[in-house]
């Protein structure tokens, strides 16, 4: 995907991608109590990546982010599966989630939930699959 050297787009992009990525991560973590979560967080990350693809050509982006997104997606699915099986060790049914409150040094009293791990898998799977689709379609001339 060769594209004209669009200065305006590039300038905005530098700031925008950072903001989108930060926002997506925020969305991901806040999902437990506020709007957000793995699905939407993952979509946000892929939106940032799509913006990169649109601004620069795909070769440049893949060169700078040398990640195989097929593998990212596969790892995501695996994480979801493995965290689901994690409950076997506690004699609970597949995909049982639990949560607890802990005192952490910096954060103070924090709630930690196993659902977050599962959600991470969801986020990675979403990123992996959406970016894979977009990458392959745009590579196809």
């Amino acid at each position, binding site marked *: 995907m060769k594209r004209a050297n669009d200065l305006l787009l590039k300038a905005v992009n530098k700031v925008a991608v950072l903001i989108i990525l930060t926002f997506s991560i925020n969305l991901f973590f806040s999902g437990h109590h506020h709007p*957000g979560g*793995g699905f939407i967080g993952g*979509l946000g990350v892929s939106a940032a990546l799509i913006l990169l693809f649109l601004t620069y050509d795909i070769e440049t982006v893949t060169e700078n982010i040398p990640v195989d997104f097929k593998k990212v997606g596969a790892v995501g699915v695996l994480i979801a599966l493995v965290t689901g099986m994690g409950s076997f060790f506690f004699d609970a049914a597949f995909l049982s*989630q639990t949560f607890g409150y802990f005192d952490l040094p910096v954060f103070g009293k924090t709630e930690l939930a196993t*659902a977050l791990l599962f959600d991470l898998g969801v986020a990675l799977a979403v990123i992996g699959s959406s970016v*894979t689709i977009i990458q*392959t*379609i745009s590579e*196809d001339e």
Partner: protein
Amino acid sequence: MSWSWFHIIILIPFIFAIFVPILYKQFNPRIHTGWFVLFIPVFLFIYFLRFIPKLSNGESILLTAPWIPSVGINFSTYLDGLSLIFGLLISGVGALVVLYSIYYMSKDREALHNFYVYILLFMGAMLGVVFSDNLFVLYVFWELTSISSFLLIAYWYERKRSRYGAQKSMLITIFGGLSMLAGFVMLWMMTDSFSIREIISQRDVLAGHSLFLPAMLLLLLGAFTKSAQFPFSIWLPDAMEAPTPISAYLHSATMVKAGIYLVARFTPVFGGSVEWFWIVSGIGIITLLYGSITAVRQIDLKALLAYSTISQLGLIMSLLGLGSASVYYVNQEEIAFYAVAVLAAIFHLINHATFKGSLFMVVGIIDHETGTRNIRRLGGLLSLMPISFTIALIGSFSMAGLPPFNGFLSKEMFFTGVLNSTSLPIYGMDKFGVIFPIIAWIASIFTFIYCMILLFKTFTGRHYPERLEKEAHEAPIGMLIPPVIMASLVIILFFFPNLLSEYLLQPALMAILPGVVETGGIDVHISAWHGWTTELFMTLGVVGIGTIMYMTLGKWKGIYRLFSQEGRLNILYDQGIINLESFSQNLTNRYMTGSVRTYLVYIFTFMILMVGGSLVLLNGLTYDFTNDAPITIYEIGIVVGIIISGVIVVFAKSRLTAIIALGALGYLVSILFVLFRAPDLALTQLVVETATVALFLLCFYHLPEFKKKGKGVGFKFTNLVISLGVGVLVTTFALSADGTRLFEPISGFFEQSYELAGAKNIVNAILVDFRGFDTMLEIVVLMIAALGVYTLIKLRLARRDGEE
């Protein structure tokens, strides 16, 4: 209900299979991978041996491990005499075959990791079949044996014959397996139980049930296809394309006997009915005759052994059928009289594994050392391969039913069983019973002839070194050990049959014929000499006439030319496959047009019919507007906007306009979500909309011309009807969904998300916790879709590159 060591030990082959590729990578070619694998069957064999004392007095062990307890499917293992014999056969023959394969399969040329993974898969599956008490667990393992057999036959997949044979065996055995599944479902419907134990205990309920006969026929279909009974036997000769250790293991000693196992296992359920008696014994005896007559004409040693296996399986099957008459009786004397056939069946099952296993291994040696299995090219190997000759002599004389080999004993018992059955006053045997001994006798003559062909055509006569691909010489010692062990068993079993009978045969007999236990058991004493009985005269006749016919083979063999070499059944099968393929291709081409629009038409029509149909049929069309919130001016505004952008999408002059209008529509919907206080949905909708529009723009150049000569997609009446239908359907569906309350709403449960999942965000708690399973499968689907897009596009690119 808990997991025990026994369950885990049955699953050991599966677990170990995971490590085989790692071991192969680490140690090949320094150490042959087979040495590692060998531990498994040896361990299993010793482990099973330890059960003999406990089971020999008729006890049985039932262990249940929960698997899917909510639907009553548990991994329950049942250990009795019958399953123990099979367990010992599977692990014992398995150990010998693995040892043999270490010398047979070259570690430099062959993909050993595949080979041993398949073998272990098979071993585990087979153990699962014989030890499962739960019908559906049994079924799963049963199909796994078919699949691993498919993989093993196609092991040399670059050969066309291997692929053909693998496909054939797969089609036939899986067909049988599916019929068997239907039979199992019927059994479950009749008894409301998945456990074979319980089904047997409810046999009184079964006998009068209308599904009794269908269930029996379907179950037998599974057994007959697996055990290569006529007319399903055609797959077995083609399965001989597998490496010889596999033929020895799967296609003679173990897998093909799964059908026998099934028949034996279900004899207490179905035995005693006239249909079971006639079908099992009839098909068995026909198979016996067909296999032995066809074996005589074979010129490939392995094909000869394949047909002989078919015929021997038929023999065992017919014995089981005849013996099932014993279930009919309650009197101890009569039970014992007819139970001899069943005893002969089990005894012959073991004997067949020993002599046929050794013969297969010898044929493998001949193939390995001379480069051919063709009888016409072989000859005079006696002086070159004396040890192999000795083994072959023991094996084939035992198969022919001569003393002092175990085959003689079980052949005598076979004759006894057949003769006893002629005195049956039931099932119309008083009229037709006499054909059984006659067929058995004729088939035995042919068995004798092909045994002699196997032995003498290969090892005696003139040796023509120029006809062989390699210079013939004796096999390495490691390759000879397994067949030597089997051949010595052949002799040992002849001299000490009662050892086997006391510890293995009797418990197995009790498992097959529960009546035997109730009446206090029968005295099982096998001896070689009974005096001048009819059986002995029959054997003498077989030897006499067999020898004469073998001597004059050249004179009458021409008769075989009247029948085509391939066999009618094979031709029928091949034509069937061709017709089936072209038929399904035609059918598929008719509706798979390759145009997305057509597919959308199918999908939407189906949706209208299914959803709309059930709405109307189930009286779902009820509306209830009383609890609805008032509609605000904002909502009206947004909906009007949505309608306008929808209309623009349809009537847009350029594709770009259409895409942008579609995007606008999506964003408006997300504003609706905001109004209804669903921020999660709104956010997701926003990002999804953005991503889709970007995707559309990416594909922009690839899509076909939007308009041809200013005519758009064109107006089609059917499309109008379908789109209107979808719109009406979705609207009425949404409205009546609100008005109908079939169940108590479950939203109350979700509202406790903070207490239950520690999450204040209900939506997310539902996604990752309450309905986590849905989400997991969703991301799997997503990933599959992504990989699908990837492979489709990459494939197309690769093909295009290939054409250039």
